[in-house]
């Protein structure tokens, strides 16, 4: 789960990481008031789950409160990579001497949280990493023991020469580690970590991603989720416990298992079609899940055919069949449905479908080809 910059700031402030003053606004009037309180020039930053905000016009400088209101009015409501901006962050336009990068990520390879720091921070950090990897200093941390003070200090020495700044950065690195652990993060990033002309070290921008698996026992973190920052159909799917990603094609896909769902999309493409979505109904699929899946897919006007691809293991294919029948009774599905199911309770599933005049295929390639054909005819 991605957090907004302003939410990440709150979590980092809570562990004591020093930051520039600033606050979040939902209206131009609020932005103006924050700018007045801060005084001087401010930066208005769009709060959306997308990179490249600056290039999209979502980050603007305002020299006074009136300009802050004007810029906020421009940014609020604008769309960046398909996401509408509902909030802006207002921060002082600080004078900056240096920009560094401090990132902490749960790494697959070492299976540990790994720090990555670089004195060459800023928006081009990925280019720095690709072209001059020696400028990135890495340190894996054993989570059983935690981050030792000397480790934090060694990372800070990679950033600064001035010992006062080194000590300040080391403290912030320890605090970042604590925020990472306390909030079940998969990623915590300060980019840039800046120094001011008068020598202070501060976090200018922050990013935190929470491990979704933590949310089950951390409802407090779940409250940070911003539904309005997601594609509406994806938010609806998540509430229905479905894993769903909207795409641009016209073949709606309902599949059990993420790997098979991706392979199904690939096969749609292979046979000349375009998938309308990724949708994994998961292992134990109740009829209710199937109904919700169909609701979400049929809400997309681009969908011209729906393909079910179910390989029953834990998933009982008769549950899926019951869900399809119940859904088509609840609401009219206007596009053709192609059903492929095989595995657990297959005979019963086919009987359920046949009773209402529906049929099922057992071969994945045949089903995909038929769905692609029907979508083409319906387009």
């Amino acid at each position, binding site marked *: 789960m991605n957090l907004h910059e302003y939410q990440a700031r709150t979590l980092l402030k809570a562990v004591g990481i020093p930051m520039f003053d600033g606050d979040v606004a939902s209206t131009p009037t609020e932005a103006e008031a924050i700018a007045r309180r801060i005084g001087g020039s401010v930066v208005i930053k769009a709060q959306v789950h997308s990179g490249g905000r600056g290039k999209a016009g979502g980050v603007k400088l305002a020299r006074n409160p009136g300009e802050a209101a004007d810029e906020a009015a421009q940014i609020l409501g604008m769309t960046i990579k398909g996401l509408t901006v509902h909030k802006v962050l207002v921060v002082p336009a600080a004078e900056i001497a240096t920009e560094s990068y401090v990132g902490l990520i749960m790494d*697959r390879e070492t299976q540990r949280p790994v720090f990555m720091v670089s004195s060459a921070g800023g928006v081009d950090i990925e280019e720095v990493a690709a072209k001059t990897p020696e400028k990135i200093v890495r340190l894996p941390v054993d989570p059983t023991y935690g981050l030792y003070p000397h480790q934090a200090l060694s990372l800070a020495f990679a950033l600064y020469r001035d010992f006062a700044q080194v000590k300040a950065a080391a403290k912030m690195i320890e605090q970042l580690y604590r925020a990472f652990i306390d909030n079940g993060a998969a*990623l915590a990033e300060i980019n840039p970590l800046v120094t001011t002309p008068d020598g202070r070290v501060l976090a200018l921008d922050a990013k935190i991603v929470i491990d979704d698996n933590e949310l089950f026992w951390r409802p407090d973190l779940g409250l940070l989720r911003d539904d309005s920052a997601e594609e509406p159909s994806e938010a609806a799917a998540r509430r229905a416990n479905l894993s769903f990603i909207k795409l641009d094609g016209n073949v709606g896909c309902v599949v059990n298992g993420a790997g*098979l769902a991706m392979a199904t999309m690939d096969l749609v493409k292979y046979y000349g079609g375009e998938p309308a979505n990724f949708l994994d109904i998961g292992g134990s699929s109740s009829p209710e899940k199937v109904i919700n899946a169909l609701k979400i897919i049929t809400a997309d006007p681009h969908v011209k055919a729906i393909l079910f691809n179910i*390989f029953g293991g834990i998933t009982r294919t008769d549950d899926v069949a019951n869900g399809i029948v119940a859904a088509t009774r609840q609401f009219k599905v206007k596009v053709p449905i192609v059903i492929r199911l095989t595995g657990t309770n297959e005979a019963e599933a086919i009987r359920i479908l046949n009773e209402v005049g529906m049929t099922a295929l057992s071969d994945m390639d045949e089903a995909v080809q038929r769905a692609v054909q029907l979508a083409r005819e319906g387009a």
Partner: protein
Amino acid sequence: MSIFADAATRLVIQGITGREGSFHARQMIEYGTNVVAGVTPGKGGQTFEGKVPVFNTVADAVRATAANTAVIYVPPMGAAAAVIESADAGIPLVVCITEGIPVMHMSRAMPFVRSRGARLIGPNCPGLITPGSRTKIGIIPGNICSAGRVGLVSRSGTLTYEVVNHLTRNGIGQSTCVGIGGDPIIGTNFIDCLAAFEADPETDAIVMIGEIGGTDEQNAAAFVREKVTKPVVGFIAGQTAPKGRRMGHAGAIISGSSGTAEEKLAAFEAAGIEIMRRPVDVVTLLEKARQNGVKT
């Protein structure tokens, strides 16, 4: 022979009295797996379906039954602790089926598992099955598998079933099928399984099913090029998956890779791995390998 699971497997099921655990305990016993014990704290002394003794701890189960393999159906919040318990009890092979374990829990569990010299398969995986000895550890449907000489390793669940089903329906049996799981931190990776299949005298060819994300498949491809003499057939799911779902800058920096299908397929190609464009292609590609002089 086979890898990891065979006739010598003596299985203890952690969470045997739970909803998932009891259902799959029945399925595993029915398939022929030698299930010697179950563990549910507080239910020690009971018997599961009149057949399997239940213990309070894995250590008790090991003492009483000489169990040598554990499978875990414990809910997510206690699953990493269950992994640690089995490793601590001296179980050399631990298979964790549970989905949804916080990654931080696994990050703490893995060093412990290694310190005990144990192997973990999973978590968030379908487990493994050796049809030749009728040994099933996990949830792979037994009826789609058949005994033979092709080894299969996969990051996926149902996609594995799809491929195994094609094999069985076309008369190609399997030595062992292993689902290694899709979580960021897993105990056994592609390379571990490739090395085991390469060393197994009863495996003639290997099928490898990967997905987008991470660099495991690329590392495995490099391993195939250097160390694997048996033919390998590979698939990558997610060629049409949307790009740009990314985790800050750190995700790209740490791996130096975006984990795309193109990148993985290129690595396969460079390693001489035959690429399946569709799941069904596994049949013709293995047939081709057989005609080139390899028995399958």
